[in-house]
């Protein structure tokens, strides 16, 4: 009987590895953009995989990637909630309660050009990282994790309409910051 139990464990563990480990880069990428810190992101990824394994029995396929990303997002949010609770006096980790971005204001006179400055990868990463949390999450899931609006809606726990407006707003903010950031002048291509 014990052998059977072991076989079952082996089988489950093997199936989980085969299904979940190929998405490690995707999970780590989202963790980096949500936590904004490499070491925090690594902790979150490990916690995500352990939690996913615990719930793997009740997992029904086939979309493993969005399932893992949903768990990762819960892990990160739980950590933010814990920090808020622990350091109530500090607003260091406070996320905005509503969707009004605290720093980013839609500029009245934006450097909007049909042409786009050339920006290198590091600058683009910083621009994305500078977006307020809900918009950052939506645009990373869309552009980098390559998910559909429906999948993003399920991960973020909001209606598809909200996902659509978040992505539209995220791109508008990004476009403004993009052209405002130092870089090659608009229209130059390398």
């Amino acid at each position, binding site marked *: 009987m014990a052998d059977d139990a072991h076989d079952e464990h082996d089988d489950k563990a093997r199936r989980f590895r085969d299904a979940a*480990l190929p998405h490690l880069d995707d999970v780590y990428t989202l963790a980096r953009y949500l936590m904004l810190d490499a070491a925090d992101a*690594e902790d979150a990824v490990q916690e995500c995989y352990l939690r996913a394994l615990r719930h793997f029995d009740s997992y*029904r396929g086939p979309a493993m990637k969005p399932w893992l990303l949903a768990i990762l997002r819960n892990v990160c949010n739980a950590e933010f909630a814990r920090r808020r609770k622990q350091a109530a006096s500090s607003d260091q980790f406070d996320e905005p309660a509503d969707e009004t971005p605290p720093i980013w204001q839609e500029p009245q006179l934006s450097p909007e050009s049909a042409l786009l400055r050339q920006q290198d990868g590091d600058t683009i990463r910083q621009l994305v990282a500078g977006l307020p949390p809900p918009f950052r999450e939506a645009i990373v899931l869309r552009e980098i994790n390559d998910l559909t609006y429906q999948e993003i809606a399920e991960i973020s726990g909001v209606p598809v309409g909200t996902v659509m407006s978040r992505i539209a707003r995220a791109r508008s903010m990004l476009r403004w910051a993009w052209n405002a950031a130092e870089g090659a002048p608009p229209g130059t291509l390398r």
Partner: protein
Amino acid sequence: MNCTDDEIMLHALIDGELDAGHARTVEAHVASCPACAQKLSAFRSMRAAMAQANLKERAPAHLRSRVEQALPASSGRIIRPAQFSQPSRRTFFGGFAAGAAVSGAIAASLVLSVFRTDQEQTVADEIVSAHIRSLQPGHLMDVATSDQHTVKPWFDGKVDVAPPVIDLTAEGFTLVGGRLDYVDGEPVACVVYQRRKHIINLFVAQRLGTGHANVKARTVQGYNVRNWSNQGLDFWAVSDLNPQELGEFVQKISAALAAPGSS
């Protein structure tokens, strides 16, 4: 669509999230509006630049081995997080485990309930895509006739089921024809009905992600969808018809299937 509409539709177009009808509407507006055309072009360039910048991070090798070690070893022994010899950096998730275990469990169960019906949802998405394709000019019907005795034999040899073809004209649902469609790469019979201007596609196959006799209702991309199983066949009805009338359609079909000598 006009410029006072927000930009959401432009982004949905860029992301390939619009059905054919909406995509045409947005494209037609962009073609006649330089301001929106400029925005669309800028957003597309930005998207292309992001894709080219290859923003996906590679998990560092030490993280990969750390995660692999944390997962159960091949001996079958489950290593619990508490058994880690390496103490976790700071109190990062220790606090989480102690403080938020309950809410964590709730969150996980929410995630699971969302994804449990994934497979069926995937088929639903495919069915709606097939429905949208069928609405393109010239795609709706392979055999166009209101005669059920023409539609039914037409399917012979094309699909491995004999789909029930039920004439509901008297009930207000006009049989307009049949079509061979593909869902998930498999040929599927599709019987086409019409109510006023609304097309109803009824997809029928032996295994089409249903397996429950009760009728399940959902909305995908604004289309109403009903699926259920009957007599070993899976049925999917899709339409832009309102939910009440589509429900009525499903009732009529089910009643006709239950009646002796049906189809």
